[in-house]
């Protein structure tokens, strides 16, 4: 067995090949970085964020996108599905018990019949 090679029965995968790939990619990244401008000066106007020409707010909260806005398009497109899912997740203990009893009944029918 080749070192680090996982045989899946349908193909194979080698972890060390991936590590070499990442190492080569890292070398390229550092090469491109080193080819950048050498006249950059930290702590000067070159460091400033361009905020549409307006002053940058001091607190990051004012320029951050909240997590609840993430994947808005995805959740909006699936809103009927999410509505159904959320209606099932009521947080009520008797509902939890109901799902358990229904599932047990289904499993029993499928195994016994």
């Amino acid at each position, binding site marked *: 067995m080749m070192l680090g090679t996982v045989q899946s029965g349908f193909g194979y995968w080698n972890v060390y090949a991936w590590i070499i790939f990442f190492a080569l990619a890292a070398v390229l990244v550092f090469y491109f970085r080193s080819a950048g401008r050498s006249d950059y000066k930290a702590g000067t106007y070159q460091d400033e964020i361009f905020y549409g020409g307006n002053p940058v707010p001091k607190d990051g*909260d004012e320029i951050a996108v909240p997590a609840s806005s993430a994947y808005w398009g995805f959740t909006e497109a699936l809103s009927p599905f999410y509505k159904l899912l959320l209606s099932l997740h009521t947080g009520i203990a008797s509902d939890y018990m109901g799902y358990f009893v229904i599932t047990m009944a289904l499993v029993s029918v499928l195994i016994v019949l």
Partner: protein
Amino acid sequence: MTWQIHIPALLIALPLLGAFVAPVFVNRRLRDIWFTALSAVVLILAFLLWRRVGAEGTAIYVMGGESWDLTLPSGMSVPIRIIMEVDAFSAFMALSGSIASFAGAIFSLRFLDRTTGGEKFVALYFLLMTGMLGMETTGDLFNFFVFLEISSVASYGLIAFWRNRPEAIEASFKYMLLSTIAALMVLLGIGILYGRYGVLNMAAIAKAMQFGLPEKVALALFVAALAMKCGSVPMHMWVPDAYSQAPAGLACFLVSVSQASLYGLFRISFSVYGRALDTPAVAWIIIVFGILSMFIAVVMAVIQKEVKRLMAYHAVSQTGYMLLGVGVGLLALTHPQAMSEYGFTAMQGGIFHIINHAMYKGLLFLTAGSIFYASGTLDLNRLGGLARNMPYTTVMFVVSAAAIAGLPPVNGFVSKLLVYESSFAVHPILTVMALVTSILTLASFVKVFQSAFLGPARARFSEVREVPRSMLVGMTVLLVAILWLSFMPTWSLSKLVGPAAQALVDQAGYIEAIMRSGL
């Protein structure tokens, strides 16, 4: 004969001792030493047991008998014995759970300094450890129920540990309600089998197993109850409640404790029923549980705004991969060609995912605990820019998030690859669902990373600093395990996962290990 033959007993006796002695340690320093040292000893014992089982085969230990290796009734009119049977699968589970419990214990030390009653936490934590290890090492169905109850009772107390929070009490109550009914179903199933065969030993029942109506009813009770205990959809709703309220060190360990129920489901399906199953219904039920758990839970995770709740949904989702992999293995169990073509690969994938999940999900919960410890919130809408203040926690999060998302070359990728390729042989839709789940997993952890760690610095977190060293050490234990499993995949599969999968498939070997002593 060496002292190591007694490890199966020590593995239960020591945490039990730890639980009963812990309340004495009101002094914080002594409590911390007791907590850490005993957890480390249990981990070492679990490792030695795993090594011994790997070298010498299934370990049998008889408690209450005439001698430790005599499984026969020893002249007593009522033979009261506890027979422990530790095969490679049991040893694998015990090792995986012990690593998580050790990491959770070290991480919890500084957390406990912020509260009173830390010694009670330690006592319940050790009791939980006893229950988990007992479930994974016993060869007796009634003992399995007893240890299941021990772990459940300890969980109720620990989930409600922040007793000043109504949400914690509510989460504990919901889990208690469901768990008690599920445990009664397990007891009923055990009662049915005891009524039929007059024995409680799993191997003895397996040898006599006839798949008639009572056995089918008992199996249905086991499957539904244990699937609920491991958090399978649609019986998963206690998981986000419980995991999000549990202290982080405990949540890390609870992942492994839930896996002990998964162990019970697999052990009963393969070792007790095994080849007597003349219907594919059970395998398909487990596969459908797996698919539903993967997909529904990950879709729910994407919209969560609280870090631990999001991670809890992912705990359910990842359990789906294990159910899918081992379910496909169960489907192929009575077909040798299918087993050699894809069934065994699927089982390897599912079982590899058990330890992978215990390590990276444990680490993710610990990083969530670090965020809460340092910033006082887990609300993703309020968090941000923490990578500047908490660089080590950020690295831990990135590695574990890459692992759970199945990004190569991290360990989650290997187990998922095995599940993808083998489940494709059963039906391509299984693989499609697993792949979509993986993509959504990546999406939700990118959201956590972007919301909590990246972005501009927040004024309210200007004083936030990296967590104390002991918490970093707890996280590092799991990080090292993840890296080991990632960079040594062939070793992991041949030494750790392969023997465990083989032990589960080899029902005759499980029966023979007890029967050669003449039960």
